[in-house]
């Protein structure tokens, strides 16, 4: 059964506003077991819990007892050209049935080809060929999972000359055709905009608001010629400003902070989630503050 619809700034969302959360990471397991997580909700990387047993699943049970949970995958390869991995889908369905996440998400990308998993979120050309392929695969995945899928825009470092759509146009058309929802990664918008020279605010302004059920925030690293989506630092000031812009347009959306490299103590990540709460409150009350 799909989550109930809920009014959000005049837009009917199919998912609840979970508040402000953080990604569940192995380095925080001990602290979470000891004193719990001081956030509204948590997001778990699905693949880390597709195991038979042991501590990861124990921690996930504990987290789920106390908090809403979202399952976030990295291996679906929705833009891949190999057949969908039915074993993976069955395992993911079983995990979702067991832990009853608010929703299941993955990335708009491909992750492997010819049975070779590259373990990266690789970019797609924004073409009609890709759109038709991904839309049909989303429908198959939603059938297999018994849930509407939520897809995230990825950071990218290259684009294709034969793309005929912008990324935001592609996302909007995909969501409409496949009836899926979107996870707007604001840091990824900023990173890709820098790397490819587009206006990040335009991306935010053009993405279909009624489909955005979650926002991601994370840190990135600067490498002179480009930005890398490294998730190893606090959210950058420019990304906070873009987040303000997103909230001003979209209203309150479930927001989650990711931190994967050089992971600090749990309290430091929780602090980023609290900052997101403050920024969102400010942006939703008074509109956007000047950057």
């Amino acid at each position: 059964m799909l989550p109930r619809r809920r009014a959000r700034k005049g837009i009917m969302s199919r998912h609840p506003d979970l508040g402000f959360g953080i990604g569940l990471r192995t380095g925080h397991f001990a602290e979470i077991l000891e004193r719990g997580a001081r956030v509204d909700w948590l997001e778990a990387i699905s693949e880390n819990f597709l195991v038979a047993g042991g501590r990861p699943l124990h921690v996930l049970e504990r987290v789920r007892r106390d908090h809403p949970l979202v399952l976030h995958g990295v291996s679906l390869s929705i833009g891949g050209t190999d057949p969908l991995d039915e074993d993976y889908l069955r395992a993911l369905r079983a995990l979702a049935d067991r832990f009853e996440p608010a929703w299941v998400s993955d990335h708009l990308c491909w992750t492997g080809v010819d049975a070779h998993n590259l373990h990266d979120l690789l970019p797609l050309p924004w073409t009609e060929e890709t759109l038709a392929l991904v839309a049909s695969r989303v429908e198959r995945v939603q059938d297999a999972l018994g849930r509407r899928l939520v897809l995230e825009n990825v950071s990218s470092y290259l684009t294709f000359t034969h793309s005929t759509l912008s990324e935001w146009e592609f996302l909007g058309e995909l969501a409409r055709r496949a009836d899926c929802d979107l996870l707007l990664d604001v840091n990824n918008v900023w990173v890709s905009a820098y790397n490819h020279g587009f206006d990040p605010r335009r991306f935010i302004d053009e993405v279909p608001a009624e489909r955005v059920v979650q926002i991601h925030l994370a840190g990135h690293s600067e490498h002179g010629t480009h930005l890398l989506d490294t998730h190893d630092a606090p959210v950058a000031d420019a990304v906070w400003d873009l987040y303000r812009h997103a909230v001003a347009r979209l209203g309150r959306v479930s927001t989650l902070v990711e931190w994967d490299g050089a992971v600090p103590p749990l309290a430091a990540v929780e602090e980023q989630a609290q900052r997101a709460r403050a920024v969102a409150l400010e942006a939703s009350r008074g509109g956007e503050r000047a950057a």
Partner: protein
Amino acid sequence: MSEALPLRELQLRLRTLIADPRGLAPEQRERLVAELPISGDARLSPAQRVAIYADMHRLRLRDALAEDYRALRRSLGDAAFARLVRTYLVRHPSDRPSLRDLGRHLPGFVEHHAELVEHAWQQDLARFEWAMVDSFDAADEPVLRAPELETLAPEAWPGLRLRPVRSLVLLGLGAPVDLVRERLLRGEESGDVPREPVRLRVWRQEWKVFHRRIDEIEAAALDWLREGATFADLCDWIADRDGDDRAAELALDLLRRWLDDELLAA
């Protein structure tokens, strides 16, 4: 000017550029990238953009294996470990959704490629470290506790089938790599590692993975139990081996040890 390719062909070619662990020559890379419809600009050429993905791919897979084989990496050093990873990935590219499984072939691989390690004991170390990975997330199950056996009727004992927990891994090794691993993870050198047979059991108790040296009798007894032997079978086997007068005592000693270590499934 490159032309649009069907998506699958584009992905196959990008895979070659990103994941070829042997490393393409720069001119070969430039030529292959030039055939792809990838945008470049004044900051980054198409080849440089593809290289960002190739670098991240190499580091991500190396780091995943280094996490699972922490002591092996320390004993080999970064350069030799990176060489081992490159060679391993040619033979065993990732074919599973999770990086958790990436290293599952490595112990067998180094056994067949002794030239990639400096010492034979490093092959044993790889087996030991992978056993710990396997035990870590093996299936959960209730464990057998002493009170449950205490209530067992005497006539039920001979037919009792005791099953080891699924997290149990039994290892027969040629060197004391349990001690070597401890030293390496403390930041010490491996030192001279003698060739001597060592039997280990690796298992998970609650949420933590343990290992313990065991003797030949315990190793064989655990194998027997896995094959479905009854308690009477176990006692008979010990009696044949060590004599009737010691069989019950030895069997009960083993049983106490296994119960203490939560090694038996309920």
